[in-house]
């Protein structure tokens, strides 16, 4: 057996052991990511991706013009999902120090690279290629264009390599602490941009829909990877060159990324040797210390800061923006709906508290020695979320005031703030209850992969319904009186959310 495959085996085994141990004797269920074999950890993803891939490509079976846009979009999906998943896996590898025992051994970088690659494939990376390949095969079979199968496969593999490479690069930055504020700020912005790529998912279907009436895609797009791969299959010369260059570049990025990750893992947690200011320090006290601690950790951890801001604010904003635009362009006047929008916005944003747990990372083990109940932890985290995004509350308020009058703006700030805090407490209580019993580091893998998804889904439904209920009077009747009634409803609902959250966290008396 080659050395890299031994390393991969050890990594996979170690991660799975730790996950099982964290779950504790009482919860014997295996935790996500690491449980099961190659087939099991890839099966669900592969099925989902295959379904999506075939669905997207049906059009292309009948109309050749769809081949390039659809296969290109599927490629982007593979890249984004792959890079994102890899980045969070890498975060776990580094937080748990899985590579550290290897750092004193005489292993080469290429061993590590291959080991990481195979572990990535093993942990669900394989499923990524199913975003592109089944669709390509379908097109190839139905239209008898075998070049599509060939170039589709090449596209899937090249994108997988790139996704791993980008994931390594991003992930290896995250647990590194640097004292430079500028560099932390830049990293935060970079992460926000990365997450912001979610916007593409919103834009691309519109774009793709636009192709329907036109003939094919704009010429320049044929040369841009991953669109160049299907274009190459159609025989566009320049696209062939561009695709091959892209595949080569992808493997270079993978090399660089794996190298960086390896150095990050073997050189400790600090990016810079410090000429630390040893001077000032103060001891402070009081109830706000846990909040201060979390804000400080957030300040040191650009990835978590970006994640929190994204999920609490930008994510919901992306969803809301088109609605807002519709409302504003209509003659209905946005102001009447602002309080309900604030309610929805705050309610959905509460899920962002998820990231504030991963923030503690290995330091979380210290918390288990302290006299803390799970409910207290839950409340502290909710408070941190509210404090982190409170600047946004003000912005929402100003926007509200400008576009819809002072009163509605003010009401929206209040409903947003109250619901955010309440929803954060509800989410936080659910999460705190599921924290491991044994002292362990907290990472994003501490909660099963689906947890955040489920929480967000539940919030969309619950707070969507709540917001809808609040706007009913304004929609039905119109007039100042009904607007006031809507506002009052939204306010009552947000106060109720806060009350529920407070009650849930209070009721959570189990010790950590």
């Amino acid at each position, binding site marked *: 057996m080659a050395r890299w495959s031994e390393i991969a085996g050890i990594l996979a085994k170690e991660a799975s052991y730790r996950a099982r141990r964290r779950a504790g004797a009482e919860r014997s269920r295996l935790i996500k990511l690491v449980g099961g074999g190659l087939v099991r950890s890839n099966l669900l993803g592969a099925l989902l991706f295959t379904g999506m891939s075939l669905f997207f490509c049906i059009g292309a079976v009948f109309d050749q013009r769809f081949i390039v846009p659809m296969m290109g979009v599927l490629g982007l999906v593979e890249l984004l999902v792959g890079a994102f998943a890899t980045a969070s896996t890498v975060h776990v590898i580094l937080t748990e120090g899985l590579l550290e025992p290897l750092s004193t051994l005489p292993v080469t970088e290429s061993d590590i690279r291959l080991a990481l690659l195979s572990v990535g494939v093993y942990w669900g990376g394989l499923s990524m290629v199913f975003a592109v390949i089944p669709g390509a095969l379908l097109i190839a079979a139905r239209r008898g264009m075998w070049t599509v199968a060939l170039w589709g496969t090449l596209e899937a593999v090249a994108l997988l390599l790139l996704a791993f490479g980008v994931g390594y690069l991003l992930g290896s930055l995250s647990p590194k602490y640097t004292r430079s504020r500028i560099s932390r700020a830049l990293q935060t912005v970079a992460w926000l941009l990365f997450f912001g790529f979610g916007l593409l998912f919103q834009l691309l279907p519109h774009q793709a829909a636009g192709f329907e009436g036109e003939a094919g895609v704009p010429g320049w797009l044929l040369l841009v990877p991953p669109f160049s791969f299907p274009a190459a299959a159609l025989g566009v010369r320049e696209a062939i060159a561009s695709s091959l260059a892209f595949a080569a570049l992808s493997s270079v990025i993978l090399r660089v990324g794996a190298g960086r990750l390896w150095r990050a893992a073997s050189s400790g947690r600090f990016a810079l040797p410090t000429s630390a200011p040893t001077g000032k320090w103060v*001891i402070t006290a009081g109830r706000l210390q846990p909040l201060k601690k979390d804000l400080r950790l957030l300040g040191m951890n650009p990835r978590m800061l970006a994640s929190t801001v994204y999920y609490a604010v930008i994510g919901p904003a992306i969803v809301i923006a088109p609605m807002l635009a519709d409302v504003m362009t209509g003659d209905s006047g946005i102001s009447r709906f602002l309080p309900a929008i604030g309610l929805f916005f705050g309610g959905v944003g509460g899920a962002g508290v998820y990231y504030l747990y991963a923030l503690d990372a290995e330091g979380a083990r210290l918390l288990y020695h302290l006299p803390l109940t799970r409910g207290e932890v839950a409340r502290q985290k909710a408070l941190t979320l509210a404090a982190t995004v409170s600047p946004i509350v003000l912005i929402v308020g100003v926007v509200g005031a400008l576009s819809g009058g002072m009163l509605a703006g003010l009401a929206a700030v209040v409903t947003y703030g109250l619901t955010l805090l309440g929803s954060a407490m509800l989410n936080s209580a659910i999460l705190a209850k599921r924290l491991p019993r044994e002292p362990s580091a907290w990472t994003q893998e501490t909660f099963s992969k689906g947890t955040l998804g489920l929480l967000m889904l539940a919030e969309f439904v619950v707070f969507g319904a709540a917001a809808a209920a609040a706007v009913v009077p304004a929609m039905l009747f119109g007039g100042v009186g009904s607007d006031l009634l809507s506002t009052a409803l939204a306010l009552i609902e947000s106060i109720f959310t806060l009350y529920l959250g407070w009650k849930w966290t209070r009721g959570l008396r189990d010790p950590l």
Partner: protein
Amino acid sequence: MLSYLDVTKLYGEVKALDGVTVEFRSGVINALLGPNGSGKSTMMKMSVGLVRPDSGQVRVDGVDPSKDPVAARRIVGYSPEEIVLYESLTPAELFSFVGSIHGIPKETLKERVNTLIRLFRLEEYMGKLIGELSHGNRRKVSIALALLHDPRVVILDEPFSGLDPQAGKILKELLRKYANEGRTVLFSTHVLELAEAVADRITILHQGRVVGFGSPKDLKERLAAADLETAFLKATGLSEEVRELLETLWGS
């Protein structure tokens, strides 16, 4: 007071603790000795509810840590064998955080932190990130954190490992002071000379059982041993094994 009554803990097949009954009295310094894997850390973790006994009872000042770990953690100052701290915080930030979890008023906290950091010579590291500190300095921070809330019961798992002689000396004096104040003091170590010099009562653990208990003098007399090392090896039944090993390996 810290007491264990017929405490058993199983990890699968492994009996980490096997019917341990022992009482660590207040007012004296207690040392817990035992070969690797004998169950010392397991015992200590039970005092703050990190590990629950499968059977038997643990009590810290009347509190059952497996039922009410939060109350136990208010009473006990526990410093684990493995150092766990937030690396991206400074010691000052960590002291502030932990102090507030214990609800210590600001002035008291300041005073205590000042005393502890002067004792352990941590002043110049207070503004650095903990991730940048040396191992020994992290150990000092970990011990200082355990003592921050002025605990009635002090439980330190291998606190001397990694400490420089000066800090070691200070810690010994500190343990003596705590014992004289009538608190319960328990530490574990592998350094027998240290245990002999510091401890009033020694408990020897072997394969999850208490195989020796008493003052260093008692133990030596009862086992007819010239020093604590010999007593330790006799109590654990390891002296034969050691002799055989040395003989087969080097024929000495």
